[in-house]
């Protein structure tokens, strides 16, 4: 009863690069100055914080006077950018010292900025940036696939207010995000021993199929063969890299 005083911690959403980069609309849910800022995920969720695991391929100090580090994090569907300056000292020193490529995990806040051409870009402001193992990276891909599918399956529910919001902002074509899930899953190596999962989710049943499913299915099925991840990735295969130092 008395637990409502402290604001509860925001969950870290799981989304692939394709979707994070498309989450260009931000909003607040109250007028309070300190009210959290949310990015709106196109599959219908608010994201004040995200958890991304990918390959850090490049780091660069893009600051003029003070150090301001940029990092490119690649997942099977695209690239997200992280920026860390003096207010994120741990992440900044990590980006300064880390040897790329390396598998990294980022806990961060999505931020948007406008480019000179008037486009809105999304980047992450890291709370943490650390090296992780390849196993952790693969697990993140499957977990993010699950969470994304969860959102897609709930997209048409009338009570889903963030899906409504997403529909208004971005339209209702969420096919690309379903496609991203497929691309990501197909990029994984064959599971060595799938039964050793400590956790199995009932993933095959209970998925509501909508009337339009057949149509979107055939459309994206064509796209499936030709969809290539972001060109930055060309021929990128996570297996070529050794894992980080830990």
């Amino acid at each position, binding site marked *: 009863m008395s637990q409502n005083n402290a604001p509860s911690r925001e969950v870290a959403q799981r989304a692939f690069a394709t979707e994070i980069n498309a989450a260009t609309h931000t909003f607040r849910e109250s007028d309070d100055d300190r009210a959290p800022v949310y990015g709106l995920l196109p599959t219908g969720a608010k994201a004040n914080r995200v958890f991304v695991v990918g390959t850090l391929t490049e780091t660069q100090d893009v600051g003029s006077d003070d150090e301001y580090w940029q990092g490119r994090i690649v997942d099977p569907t695209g690239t997200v950018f992280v920026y860390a300056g003096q207010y994120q000292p741990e992440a900044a020193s990590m980006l300064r010292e880390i040897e790329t490529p390396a598998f990294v995990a980022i806990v961060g806040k999505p931020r948007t900025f406008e480019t000179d051409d008037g486009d809105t870009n999304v980047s992450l402001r890291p709370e*943490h940036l*650390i090296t992780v193992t390849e196993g952790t990276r693969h697990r993140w891909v499957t977990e993010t696939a699950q969470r994304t599918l969860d959102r897609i399956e709930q997209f048409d529910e009338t009570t889903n207010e963030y899906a409504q919001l997403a529909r208004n902002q971005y339209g209702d074509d969420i096919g690309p995000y379903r496609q991203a899930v497929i691309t990501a899953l197909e990029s994984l190596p064959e599971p060595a021993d799938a039964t050793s999962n400590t956790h199995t989710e009932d993933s095959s049943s209970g998925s509501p199929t909508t009337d339009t499913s057949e149509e979107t299915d055939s459309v994206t099925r064509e796209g499936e063969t030709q969809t290539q991840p972001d060109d930055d990735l060309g021929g990128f295969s996570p297996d070529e890299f050794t894992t980080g130092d830990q």
Partner: protein
Amino acid sequence: MNDTKLHDHAQDIHEELPDAADVSSDEIQQRLTTLVDDYQVPLEEARRTILSTYFNETDTDSETLDRDNEHVDLNTINEAEQWVDITAKLVDLWEPQNDAIAQVGLLGDETGTIKFTKWAKSDLPKLTEGHVYTLENVVTDEYQGQYSVKLNRTTNIQQLEQTIEVGDNTTTAEGALIDIQTGSGLIKRCPNPDCTRVLQNGRCSEHGEAEGDFDLRIKAVLDDGTTVQEVIFDQETTEQLTGITLQQAQQRAMDALDTSVVTDDIRELVLGNYYQLKGPILGRYLLVNEVEQCETMHDPGPLLVRARSL
């Protein structure tokens, strides 16, 4: 208010009063009518007034009343100052640290366990470990997010012949460890017996300046993308999680003349990893008893089927 209603309420009140009150239902109804009809006292208040009048006259404490408490499962107790009835097995008796306490220990039912305290002044029969009791009229209490029940003078204790399979309220949480909170790493605790408070700048909030005993712990956040669970690793599970022993941590801190290096080490080792953690939930925290790192991915096969079927 009509008479039949008042009559019913009067009878209710009459039944609630001890025999010693020696008052008729009619007499109560009369008082009730005066209060409610003549003096516009709300019915509930009128009821309370009458009850307390007769209790005062008979010198009985209203707490000795058989209340209509809810009989609850132990894991549903989540509010302090509630009068409840429970049925539980005495799992464990602890050494009372205080003369005011007659017995203290752990009660358990199928749903979980809870601490109990029995005061010396309550003058209640002795409880025996392993026996199952129905305890009527116990009061719930809360301290730092942990709930307990207190037995009191009015508690009715009945031993039952049945046995109870005590459930462990172990919860399993799985997810990525995405944050480490302040107060993690090498800490110092107040050396006073019974006080395990963490020292802040060499001071215990209760006992003041103290040398302190070193301890290792991690307060962290586990997040699975849909829910957030705060967790605490004690010394043993911290050692298990990080491979850093308390001794090594002390050495590290001594060499660096700074305890924060230990927290940095821990951060580097555990942040961003997936874990399955097991332990009881106390308040906001899951107290970790078992740690397992999850580095295996979920089987992509069924997920692909699911994605393609949408």
